[in-house]
């Protein structure tokens, strides 16, 4: 399997007043295509920061991050956006749906951005696949937490990305919904051959991944 992602001595620091907080410390990580990885660790250990760096939503203080052939640490914001919109899907614990867009519109937006011919039709197919046929025209506020997360997943995988980044995807859901969401995610990466990097506190979910990484005090253990 070829390399999809490579992190070389990546550091992330924050300045709060006079204090410097080291969030990530010399992270080295290589992931291959179709690999599923779970990241575990205590709160504040740097898990979410790591996937934000990978997704290009945050800039590393030092070190290099390669995604496929691109060194994303060298690219500007728009260039990273261009990679993200085609190759990286992100799922959040808080869903981050656009409140005044319907379920279909939320999903179709990614497709439209990538100039799909029938974005709404594609979006409906995806939502249907996740059991949301009856919720096409509902606003996020009219959906349950599980339904909102399914819409968010549909939106993130709409472009069939090489890599899916998930930050506590079941963190806001009950057991039943958590199970459903994890099944959807893992079945999808299996069927489509995407890679998945997932931050979670849930040991069961973490164990579903082929590889498990533990982070402590900003370092991979």
């Amino acid at each position, binding site marked *: 399997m070829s390399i999809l992602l490579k992190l070389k001595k990546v550091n992330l620091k924050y300045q709060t007043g006079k204090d410097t907080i080291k969030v990530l410390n010399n992270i080295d990580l290589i992931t291959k295509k179709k690999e599923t990885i779970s990241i575990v660790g205590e709160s504040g250990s740097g898990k979410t920061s790591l996937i934000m760096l990978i*997704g290009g939503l945050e800039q590393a203080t030092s070190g290099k991050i390669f995604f496929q052939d691109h060194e994303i640490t060298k690219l500007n914001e728009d260039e990273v956006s261009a990679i993200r919109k085609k190759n990286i899907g992100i799922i959040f614990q808080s869903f981050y749906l656009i409140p005044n867009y319907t379920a279909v519109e939320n999903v179709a937006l990614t497709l439209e951005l990538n100039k799909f011919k029938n974005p709404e039709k594609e979006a409906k197919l995806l939502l249907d696949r996740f059991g949301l046929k009856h919720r096409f025209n509902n*606003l996020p506020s009219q959906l349950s937490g599980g339904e909102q997360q399914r819409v968010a997943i549909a939106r993130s995988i709409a472009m069939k990305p090489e890599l899916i980044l998930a930050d506590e995807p079941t963190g806001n859901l009950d057991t039943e919904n958590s199970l459903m969401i994890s099944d959807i995610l893992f079945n999808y990466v299996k069927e489509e051959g995407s890679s998945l990097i997932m931050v979670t506190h849930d040991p069961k979910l973490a164990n579903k991944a082929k590889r498990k990484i533990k982070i402590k005090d900003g370092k991979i253990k």
Partner: protein
Amino acid sequence: MEKSNNSSEVNLIFKYAFKDLSRNYKKIISIIITLFISLFILSAIFTIEDSLKKELNDNAKALLGGDLEIDYNRNEGNLKLVTKVKEFATISQMIEFSTMVATINRDKNKSLFTRIKTVDEKYPLYGTVEYEPEGAFDRMQNEPNTVLINESLSKTLNLKINEQIKVQDKLFTVIGIVKSVPDVSGFVAFGDWALAGKQTLEILKLNGIGSFLNYEYKVKFNENDDEQEIEERIENIFKDDQKVKLRYPENSASGLKRIINNFSQFLSLVSISAMLIAGIGVANTLLSFINQNNMSIAVRKAVGFYSGDIKILYYLQLLILLFVVTTLAYGSSFLIVPFVDQYLSDGLGLNVLPVFSIINFIKIFLIGLLVLIIFSIPTINSIDQVKASNLFRNVFQNLEFYYSKKSVILSFLLLSILVLVFSYNSENPIYSIGYFAAFFVCLGVFFLLSKLIIFFLKKFRSTPNISLKVSIKNITQTKSITPITIMSLGLGVTLLLTLALVGTNFKREIAKSIPNIAPDYFFVGIQKGEKEKFETNIFEMDPNAKVEIVPMVSSGIVKINGINPNTYISSDNDSYWVIGSDRRSSWVNEVPEDNPITEGKWWDLTKSNELQISLDAKVAQDLKINLGDIFTLNIYGREIDGKIVNFRSVDYRDLSINFAMLFNPQFANNIPHEYLATTKFKNIENFDEISMLEVLPSLSMIKIADYLNKVTSVLNKVFMAVTLISAVTIIIGLIVISSAIMVQGKVKEYQNLVFKIIGFTKRDVILSSIIEFLIIFNSVILIATFFAVIASKFIMENLFELVWKFDFKVLLTLGFSIGLVTLLLIMLTNLKYLNPKVYPLIRNQ
């Protein structure tokens, strides 16, 4: 928490209101600024108007020059009747006239057309004359050929005390400088003038109509007399004298009062515009603020606060804020009075002092409160939409204005009170009520426009351009704030355009060059035997000068169709001046080039023994005169009937010779007359006023450029005031426009965050914002231009009585500039939302 119906709960709400306000005042700084500016304008206008009116009322008798004024205008009047009044009251006679004043014994002498007021030793009956040096006023009364000149004349002719001047062919000595006289009402407020003793008129032997003589008798009642009784007695004495006009203190400074009233009417409308627009701004900012506090409201509800309690909490904060801001704004308005005082004391000798009025304070607070409540009702009602359950569902809920039937009725009631409070006591309640109606019509039209835009855009949703698609979606989405953005932007842009159009029209009036056909000089007071001498002298100095000489006679309209002319027109009509006093009229053989006939025929040569009259068409329309009507004119004491045979279109602004009435020369040539002349020089530098005066000492010369400069200087001062107040209102307009964007702030920031996550570039986001603005602005500007054109035309023509002109180029430039500035403002306000930092947001920081 139980419903707040006992004192401890009220205390709790007060405690939280103060706590929230002290912690959040930085977040609502734009509410504070908007409120302060608008209340400051309102306070300043109320304070200045009150201070001015108090000064005018306190000095009404001084401004009139007595308890009563007997005005005979251009005639000496019936002295027998005046003597009768002298039996029980003190009378001071005053005669004003205009003539040339020239320097002597200089290398290059200068002359100036000057108004001179001759007064007797009883002057002034009320108030004081301020002059220097000491004793100069008494010297002027006792020593012949002495004058006191005002500061402006002293500066213009560079005259010093004890310097000699020539008035007509007589020498006078300047023995002092007058700083102010109490009775500015019947006198020249701005410009050049002088005071002289009563003997002056005899020395100069003035009698021609070119001297613009004006006879007035000021009356002072004895101290213990009943004013009303004496007034009635005097009215009785003059009841059969049609030439006299009696004036009372309440009529004093009527011209000045009219200017103040018109100007304060305009300023009041601007200030209420500022208040109403500020109200929209407050509503927007408050909604944005409540949206920011969405979570804390939900938490409060979760711990047991009633929705009503939370709303009271917000109303209370607004009330506290309004009280503090009103106090500050009203207090600060007193700082403006010294500036007004300085400006007015220079020209008019009025000393304006700040007048504290608790009624004004309450009125300002009440107007502020009404505006605030009217616009806050739908905003604060949005609190009802916040659900404590949102805390569990992790849903970001954007609040929107919320109207219930009850709140609509309440808003309407409060609005009616606001209209009544504002219109009551306003100079012209009809204008004020009309203004409110227009304001809400504008609001309604912009609301309909927003609905129309949404309706049409919904049909254009299939477009491959993602930025366009997002902007259309933003405009048309459910719960879109497009209507409020369009209403705010529309009213803001309308106000900006209106004030800009008023400003540019003012500027054009100020910069208006002398019309091409206008002469360089007007010459008045050319006697019958001096006509040739005048022409010879002009042509000696400039052989190529273009001279126009017309005969001139003074006549008064005594009757129209046999009845009193006052029954035809009210004294506040624009054309009242035609019958108000004696008018100068002329006669010509041919129709004047710039006075085309609009109706009727030129002179009927077969009826040369009858007086035929050609009348100004506008005057005819105002007086409701038809062709064939008869004017009975008093010419040199003889009453002559004249028939109206035609109407002419007269444009007095071209500054050429224009008369409201022209007579047929075949008849009028026999009337004793003098001449009026205009001259347009080829080489104006060859014309020497002093040499002209040496040949014709009684000649009066009015240089058009000097006259226009005086008008320009007054207009400039008004323009400065208009610009200043407009600039302040424009600031409010801009704050409101940005507040409309702030309402969307949180949603925009969130939306752009999601866009960024899924791969939108900064360019896509900015482009969609620009497209959204352009769609809205382009629709708004058309309607706003329409309203602004109507409003600015009304303001210029009705309130300032100046010319309004439609200038497409100016409108285009203004529209483009306002669009650009608004776009920049929106982009600046939006900047932090356009490219949000993902990490702090995701981390809920």
